């Protein structure tokens, strides 16, 4: 059996989405900017897709949803353009973000620091979320932008975006949210929540890889990241990724149908899996079920190192992920785990399981079984649960 429980990393393309995309690879492959029929035949589908995105995010027609290649591009664009438009040669010189953002935000901010920008990286509390009073205390008249993720990728914790947007409005500071883990998983209503910029990516909600977007409130001015032709109204150059855009629109519409559907069992299955895991001794799940996206569990299994755990699960065909430092190429400790702080051991014993609406009951039952035997095996090996004579002074 193969079970995919790493949907916060990427997702399967919904076959219905793929079916909509296919003709635009092999039949209507023209460049939408061309004058001939090969090009113009794509327009109806592209406009439909854009409409699906506007509906999906509940964006106003006055707003822009500019298609990019991925959320990394969207995040780079907003941060670098805030530097060009609001910091360079201006009086403002400060960006506020968090310690638990995606590397595309953190690394871009680190780069901006080398250009003289002051960046504040807000800590999260033990639950793994930002406390709004901490944000408030860091906003000054030099602050050009606040950039805070909607949902954390590791924990699935939903940040208080509405309150944060209100604080930013009151302080007259621009607000950007990296909503990669939120869009397609929870309702997003950009008419209700006042956000200036929002990044998202199709492959996190059963769309294709290589396409994402940046929402820009009221079509406000922003220096482009990619200069070139007149694509996307001149905001983002590069030949339009026609099948990608069509796929993203369709995928967002389907995701929303899915989480609005009474038949959706993603949360039920996630909760079943979580309850089964919690039956084990010495386990700890980050955050309350209702404060998280309905698909994510980040669990710490005492005495079981994360990479060893995903090795054992992988042997059984189960894909999961770990926040463990050991599994990363550079052995860097995980920022979310460090930020949560309370349980230092969590940094090395964390297992992230992220479901999708394609996950089945059978898959969850199978996972529970295999996960239990992996924990049993690895705890039998673990020094954390080992014998010592009474004269031995443990140093572990």
């Amino acid at each position, binding site marked *: 059996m193969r079970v995919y429980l790493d949907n916060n990393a990427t997702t399967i393309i919904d076959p219905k989405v793929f079916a909509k995309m296919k003709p635009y690879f092999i039949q209507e492959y023209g460049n939408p900017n061309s004058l001939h029929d090969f090009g113009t035949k794509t327009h109806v589908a592209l406009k439909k897709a854009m409409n699906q995105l506007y509906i999906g995010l509940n964006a106003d027609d006055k707003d822009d949803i500019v298609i990019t290649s991925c959320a990394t591009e969207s995040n780079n664009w907003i941060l670098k353009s805030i530097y060009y438009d609001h910091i360079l040669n201006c009086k403002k010189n400060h960006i506020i973000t968090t310690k638990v953002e995606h590397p595309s935000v953190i690394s871009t901010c680190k780069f901006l620091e080398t250009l003289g920008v002051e960046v504040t990286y807000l800590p999260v509390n033990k639950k793994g979320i930002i406390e709004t009073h901490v944000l408030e205390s860091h906003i000054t008249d030099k602050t050009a932008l606040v950039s805070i993720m909607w949902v954390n990728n590791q924990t699935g914790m939903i940040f208080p975006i509405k309150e944060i947007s209100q604080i930013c409005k009151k302080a007259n500071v621009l607000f950007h949210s990296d909503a990669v883990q939120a869009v397609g998983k929870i309702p997003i209503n950009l008419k209700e929540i006042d956000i200036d910029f929002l990044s998202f990516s199709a492959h996190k909600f059963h769309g294709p890889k290589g396409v994402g977007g940046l929402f820009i409130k009221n079509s406000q001015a922003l220096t482009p990241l990619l200069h070139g032709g007149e694509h996307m109204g001149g905001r983002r150059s590069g030949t339009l990724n026609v099948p990608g855009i069509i796929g993203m629109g369709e995928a967002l519409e389907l995701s929303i149908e899915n989480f609005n559907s009474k038949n959706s069992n993603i949360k039920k299955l996630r909760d079943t899996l979580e309850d089964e895991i919690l039956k084990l001794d010495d386990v700890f799940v980050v955050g309350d079920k209702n404060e998280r996206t309905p698909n994510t569990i980040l669990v710490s299994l005492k005495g079981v190192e994360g990479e*060893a755990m995903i090795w054992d699960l992988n042997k059984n065909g189960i894909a999961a992920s770990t926040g463990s430092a050991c599994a990363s*190429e550079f052995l860097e400790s995980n920022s979310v785990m460090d930020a949560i702080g309370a349980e230092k051991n969590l940094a090395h014993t964390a297992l992230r399981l992220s479901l999708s609406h394609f996950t089945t009951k059978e898959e969850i039952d199978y996972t529970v079984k295999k996960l239990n035997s992996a924990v049993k095996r690895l705890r039998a*090996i673990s020094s954390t649960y080992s014998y*010592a004579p009474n004269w031995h002074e443990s*140093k572990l």
Partner: protein
Amino acid sequence: MAKNDLIGDSIWEQYSKKVQDLMNNPENMGEITEEETQKKGLKLVVADFGAESCGDAVRLYWAVDEKTDTIKDVKFKSFGCGTAIASSDTMAKLCKNKTVDEAVKITNIDVEFAMRDNPDTPAVPPQKMHCSVMAYDVIKAAAASYKGVDIDSFENEIIVCECARVSLGTIKEVIKINDLNTVEEITSYTKAGAFCKSCIKPGGHEEKKYYLVDILRDTRKEMKIKKMSDLADARILKKSSELSFDDFTVVQKLKAVEDVIDKDIRPMLIMDGGNLEILDIKDSDDGSIDIYIRYLGACSGCASSSTGTLFSIESILQENCSKKIRVLPI
């Protein structure tokens, strides 16, 4: 960076078959109890290294025959990734039937080598070399406990890079001998910093006492001071002819020029009721060394001061110090 780095290999694909097998079925995993060793007339040694909060921890059990100091049985328990488990297991195997003194000589490099499928291919990717270090450290901890000595007594030099076991002395020596200027050069000469990278600069996997960036900076500074003091010594020993005036520091140039002026120029000027002072020495963009002077006393206003006198001052300095000297009266 090049073709092979652009789409990196998964770390798991780089584990040897032996490592993978040991991860799945460690052979020496387990415990030795006090009861068992007492029955066999052996001494139980238990040693710990690492901590769960660091990501790696191992507990090592030895059953030692005290008459011969021989390790009769070895078991381990390990918290860590698969390579940590495999390294601990291999370390346990290597200890078996060795004397305690022999066991202490086993290093992490031996452990890694024993896990290779073939002698030329590393058993683990570079960043995982670190896992074998703990296997080495816990042997020392066990031996220290058995002998009742301090763990540091087994290490007689300061090891900066534990993965590749490169000492502080070696690193300083290669920097000096090969005139190295970057950490990358140190790594390519010694392999220090090629594995888990913790020893390169603060902020890596573990905190270190010595970092390559600091060692490089301090050694370069030492080298610069040494060079300056060598130059100064040479001057005192009147060996300045062996050294190039052009390489002197500004202060050294000034002193050398002053010496020549005092000895060969000033007496000549004083006889005519004049003198000069040096205002500045500068390396000019066209490659010459410009010495700015001001005439004093009778010299100032003397017709010859910008022709014959100037010419002879310049030639004396050129002859004694450097052909590049140009004298500019202000």
